[in-house]
């Protein structure tokens, strides 16, 4: 088996003029990057890393936004044999102090020896550094050696072993980014070899179009590493631009005759709702053979809304696909809807909610239409386990566990976390679901995790932030997610027992809570509900019961609706 650097050398030698990436920026001409450009730019970075004393096997944190610097820095690290890890950039909503604290925490656990960033951001990075930490150098994108032909034989990347770690992915939590998922060359290549077959990838015909951030597995693996290593061109937009102009994705598909895209569920709703016809003049989506719904709970309604909206622009129904993926398995666990429509399983609603079985509908009773996540890809085995770790038969809901030849090496520098994630060699996903006729259906998750627009939000982090507001004491604040049908993702709701007699005072408190939460986590609360004392339900040990309070809140909404 080859390593990343060997594969890249092959492309540089054999297909130097082939375009691997089209980088899109609003108001600028599109920038095509060939394998020659890519490896020459990467070689400039690799030379700089060597000069700065970075050794192969050491971690480099990249704090760069969408653009050529990020692309070159990433592959420069690979070529040098260092381990790249992309950290999200500071957004204007997030408080700089919070960002610094996250960065300091990442550094203390991951122990990178270098950070790569822009001149403008150097002060921000330096303010997160401590005298005794691992970082020896901050490398600035304006001070990089010029692109040059790589002398592959002298590159650290060529000496890496297939079992060595090639990259780290940091799971996108609200605060703290401590869980770096370490992946080996072997794991990533095994994933790509298996997934390419399921996707039916054709390097002469396929083009990936993506706006996804590269610090997330879907963006990094499916829309960056996979196409570049497998010689499928990518058209890359920035997430920052897409959220402000979602039509740019469809224009790019039309212009480049894009065939494959991966999107989180909310993006299907977002595109369907927020793109006007006048922004789509001349757009033809008939080249799209797979638009893959992935990374958030996927909903039939979201796929349908997307199809209804864009059918008249040439979108084909068979193009709608689904995938269940996680960074711990490099990326895909299952894939559905390639070459056929995604399966839909109609089941009895009470059976799912009360008895935790997915049985066929009973006459006259409410049903649910479940969207299949597809079948496990060939190198991945999936089991559904009960609470004792015993495999369950078809149509019984349990925890999804997997076993593959593309699992993580471990959570970087977190052996205890790694050990806890596995049961007898099976990785426990924390997601609930069931199997039926070889297809996997996801029904929920074990932890109180909320997923907002593809981003993982831990309620306890938000509760902690809200407690910075006077009177919002521990045990008097609760946060949970409520699915928003229109947006296709979860809304974050916060309830605090701090209501006063004065409506203006209440508004002021709500505003303060919204502000500390947004500035501390970059998450906007959909609703802040102030309630009187003793509203919140607690467990016998005095802890706030999130699920019970969520039920109470939903019942309250129902009763005011009628």
């Amino acid at each position, binding site marked *: 088996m080859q390593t990343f650097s060997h594969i890249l050398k092959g492309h540089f030698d054999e297909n130097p003029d082939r375009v691997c990436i089209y980088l899109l920026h609003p108001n600028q001409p599109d920038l095509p990057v060939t394998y020659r450009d890519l490896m020459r730019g990467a070689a400039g970075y690799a030379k700089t890393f060597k000069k700065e004393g970075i050794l192969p096997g050491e971690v480099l944190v990249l704090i760069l936004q969408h653009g050529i610097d990020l692309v070159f820095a990433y592959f420069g690290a690979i070529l040098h044999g260092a381990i790249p890890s992309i950290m999200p950039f500071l957004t*204007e*909503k997030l408080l700089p102090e919070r960002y610094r604290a996250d960065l300091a925490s990442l550094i203390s656990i991951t122990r990178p020896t270098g950070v790569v960033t822009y001149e403008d951001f150097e002060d921000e990075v330096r303010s997160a550094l401590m005298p005794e930490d691992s970082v020896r150098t901050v490398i600035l994108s304006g001070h990089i050696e010029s692109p040059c032909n790589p002398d592959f034989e002298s590159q650290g990347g060529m000496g890496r072993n297939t079992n060595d770690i090639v990259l780290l992915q940091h799971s996108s939590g609200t605060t703290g980014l401590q869980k770096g998922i370490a992946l080996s060359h072997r794991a990533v290549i095994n994933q790509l070899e298996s997934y390419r077959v399921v996707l039916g990838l054709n390097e002469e015909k396929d083009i990936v179009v993506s706006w996804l951030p590269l610090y997330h597995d879907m963006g990094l693996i499916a829309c960056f590493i996979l196409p570049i290593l497998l010689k499928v061109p990518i058209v890359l937009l920035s997430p920052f*631009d897409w959220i*402000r*102009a979602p039509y740019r994705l469809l224009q790019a598909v039309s212009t480049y005759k894009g065939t494959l895209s991966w999107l989180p569920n909310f993006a299907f709703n977002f595109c369907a709702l927020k793109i006007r016809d006048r922004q789509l003049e001349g757009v033809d989506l008939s080249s799209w053979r797979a638009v893959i719904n992935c990374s958030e709970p996927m909903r039939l309604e979201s796929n349908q809304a997307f199809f209804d909206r864009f059918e008249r622009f040439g979108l084909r129904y068979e193009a709608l696909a689904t995938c269940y993926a996680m960074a711990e398995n490099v990326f895909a666990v299952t894939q559905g809807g390639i070459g056929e429509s995604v399966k839909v399983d109609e089941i009895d609603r009470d059976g799912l909610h009360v008895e935790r079985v997915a049985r066929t509908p009973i006459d006259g009773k409410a049903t649910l239409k479940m969207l299949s996540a597809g079948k496990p890809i060939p190198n991945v085995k999936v089991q559904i386990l009960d609470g004792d770790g015993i495999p369950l038969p078809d149509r019984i809901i349990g925890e999804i566990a997997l076993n593959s030849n593309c699992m993580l090496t471990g959570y970087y520098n977190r052996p205890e976390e790694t050990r806890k994630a596995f049961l007898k060699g099976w990785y426990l996903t924390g997601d609930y679901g069931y199997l039926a006729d070889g297809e996997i259906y996801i029904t929920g998750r074990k932890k109180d995790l909320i997923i907002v627009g593809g981003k993982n939000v831990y309620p306890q982090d938000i509760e902690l932030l809200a407690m910075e507001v006077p009177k919002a004491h521990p045990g008097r604040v609760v946060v949970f997610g409520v699915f928003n049908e229109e947006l296709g993702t979860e809304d974050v709701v916060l309830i605090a027992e701090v209501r006063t007699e004065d409506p203006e005072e209440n508004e002021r408190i709500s505003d303060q809570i*919204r*502000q500390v939460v947004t500035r501390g986590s970059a998450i*906007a609360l959909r609703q802040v509900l102030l309630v009187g004392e003793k509203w919140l339900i607690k467990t016998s040990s005095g802890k706030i019961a999130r699920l019970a309070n969520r039920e109470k809140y939903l019942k309250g909404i129902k009763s005011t609706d009628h």
Partner: protein
Amino acid sequence: MNSEISTKLTTYISTEILKQPNRTIDPEAALISGGIIDSFSLVDLALYIEDEFGVHIDDFELNSSTFDNINQLVKLIESRDQ
């Protein structure tokens, strides 16, 4: 300063974006950097301004350096509505 534009913007933001129709918004309150409007809603605001006032705001202008409060937004609309 055109108070009609200001009122319309305030009503739109509180009713359609925040879903809190009774809420008052200080015309100097930081909308983007203060977290009142999240990035998911910026496109709605731009489309509303285009439909209601016939003023186009490009997507790459949708950030706090172009406008961050209602007063700045009113000025921007007025300056383009010539």
